[in-house]
């Protein structure tokens, strides 16, 4: 089988913003690069994110998702990256230092060997099953992303009158989008006491259109035989348990869920990548290499990002590093984040392969005001930054110089300041 295999230096799986940047990053380093995409068009989820606000950091302008994607696609088309569209990876295995991939497309099977792999497979939405909404299973329960696909790609309205459960950014953006297209959005229900999306989206997507946001309320049940006819809402206590007596039945034809995203790493099962319980994505070092030698991660497959600009940044680095991939021992030192943090990435630092400053991202566990976040090495502060406010939906980025650390250094991320 290996006689028939085509050989590449770097194979990038997924051609969304992370994969596009990774493929460009790899080919610019001279690597023979293959980019694999299951859909017919490049761009991933950006194709359906027709709203603006992309590129504020990387390009200092407000672009729509399709514009941002096209910018990278045009760059990619100038390179020799081979794109395999409408192609699935059905098997990914490692033998020695070589990866073996089996691809399936309309043309049949294709066998690939690669020196390194970049997993840029993005993330998935949580579904109704994962949040245990009771009742029948009628048509009309959509994730926000699928409602967005119907509206913005197929040009079909998924609802005339709906309830949105969860206040993630896609849910807020869909509240506005469906309203603009003539649907009635009765309200956005959020089980937590604070909105899950960015405040600017609460302002420009809900407040601008007088769409109510109900916090500490959830949907407990759906009704309907063929099509959804109503949902039951209820207030929840601080443990998110519905409070009896607060139920309210609301007639509608759809329930749209925006209840969180989970990094997609099913493909890595076969090569046994270590997954971080906090991020639900792979554990990786500062060069975006996972705990499986030669496998790199980036974008939302690594951890769910709030800005596409950061997705591209990690993709570009992961692609370039995958191209430079040299087989050699790593020496990994963990970065320990205190309990004030939801998570911090990278989870480990490879002190054998330090390439300049390390980009750290973290999310706060709770809403906090006026805090200082510090990086300590053996108890000494080597970097610190003050924040006026921190919210879990907002990812924070810092660049830290770790060039002086050694294999027995204790690296901690700590937060000091009052609780909100």
């Amino acid at each position, binding site marked *: 089988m290996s006689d028939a295999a085509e050989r590449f230096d770097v194979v990038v799986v997924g051609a969304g913003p992370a994969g596009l940047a990774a493929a460009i990053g790899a080919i610019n380093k001279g690597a023979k690069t293959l980019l694999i995409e299951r859909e017919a068009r490049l761009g991933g989820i950006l194709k359906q994110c*027709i709203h603006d606000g992309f590129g504020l950091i990387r390009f200092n302008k407000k672009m729509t998702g399709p514009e941002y994607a096209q910018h990278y696609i045009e760059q990619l088309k100038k390179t020799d990256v081979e794109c395999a569209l409408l192609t699935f990876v059905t098997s990914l295995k490692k033998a020695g230092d070589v990866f073996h991939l089996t691809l399936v497309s309309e043309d049949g099977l294709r066998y690939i060997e690669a020196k390194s792999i970049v997993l840029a497979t993005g993330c998935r939405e949580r579904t109704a099953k994962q949040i245990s909404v009771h009742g029948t299973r009628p048509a009309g329960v959509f994730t926000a992303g699928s409602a967005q696909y119907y509206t913005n790609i197929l040009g079909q309205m998924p609802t005339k009158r709906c309830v949105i459960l969860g206040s993630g950014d896609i849910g807020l953006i869909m509240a506005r989008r469906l309203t603009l297209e003539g649907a009635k959005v009765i309200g956005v229900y959020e089980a937590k006491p604070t909105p899950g999306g*960015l405040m600017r989206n609460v302002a420009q997507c809900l407040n601008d259109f007088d769409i109510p946001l109900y916090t500490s309320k959830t949907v407990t049940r759906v009704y309907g035989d063929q099509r959804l006819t109503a949902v039951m809402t209820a207030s929840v206590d601080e443990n998110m348990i519905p409070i009896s007596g607060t139920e309210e039945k609301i007639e509608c034809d759809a329930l749209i869920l925006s209840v969180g995203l989970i990094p997609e790493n099913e493909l890595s099962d076969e090569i046994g990548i270590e997954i971080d319980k906090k991020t639900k994505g792979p554990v990786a070092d500062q060069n975006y290499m996972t705990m499986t030698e030669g496998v790199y991660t980036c974008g939302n497959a690594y951890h769910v990002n709030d800005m596409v600009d950061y997705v591209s940044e990690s993709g570009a680095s992961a692609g370039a590093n995958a191209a430079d991939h040299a087989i050699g021992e790593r020496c990994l030192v963990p970065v320990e984040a205190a309990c004030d943090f939801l998570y911090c990435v990278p989870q480990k630092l490879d002190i054998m392969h330090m390439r300049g400053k390390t980009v750290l991202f973290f999310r706060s566990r709770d809403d906090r005001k006026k805090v200082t976040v510090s990086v300590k090495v053996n108890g000494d502060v080597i970097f610190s930054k003050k924040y006026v406010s921190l919210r879990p939906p907002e990812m924070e980025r810092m660049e830290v110089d770790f060039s002086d650390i050694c294999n027995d250094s204790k690296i901690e991320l700590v937060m000091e300041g009052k609780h909100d």
Partner: protein
Amino acid sequence: MIKTKDMICIVCPTGCRMKVQYDDKNISVEGNTCKRGEQFAKNEITDPMRSLTTTVRTVFKGFPVLPVRTDKDIPKPLVLSAMKEISKITVSKKVVMGEYIIENILNTGANIIASCDIPCEERE
């Protein structure tokens, strides 16, 4: 009489919470962390503006709607009227990113432009 309004800045993802105090002559802004926030808050009182992103029907097979946007902000009260104008249009020729779909929509001086190329040729 001085009026007070709480608002969230939508200029960037930071989303500063601002307090705006204003009367007929003066507007003062608190809570912003940059100049753009102050300008946004002042505009919100006098003449709120918004960008509009939506889709337009096309005749192309496999590409039934084209994403479009305003090339500059339009007055907020005109957003729904602009949607009505855009819904009257069907794009029947291949366009590229940035091409005008509607010029000077509702006499705002803003144009509706394509957000990406139409990738296919075949018509429905």
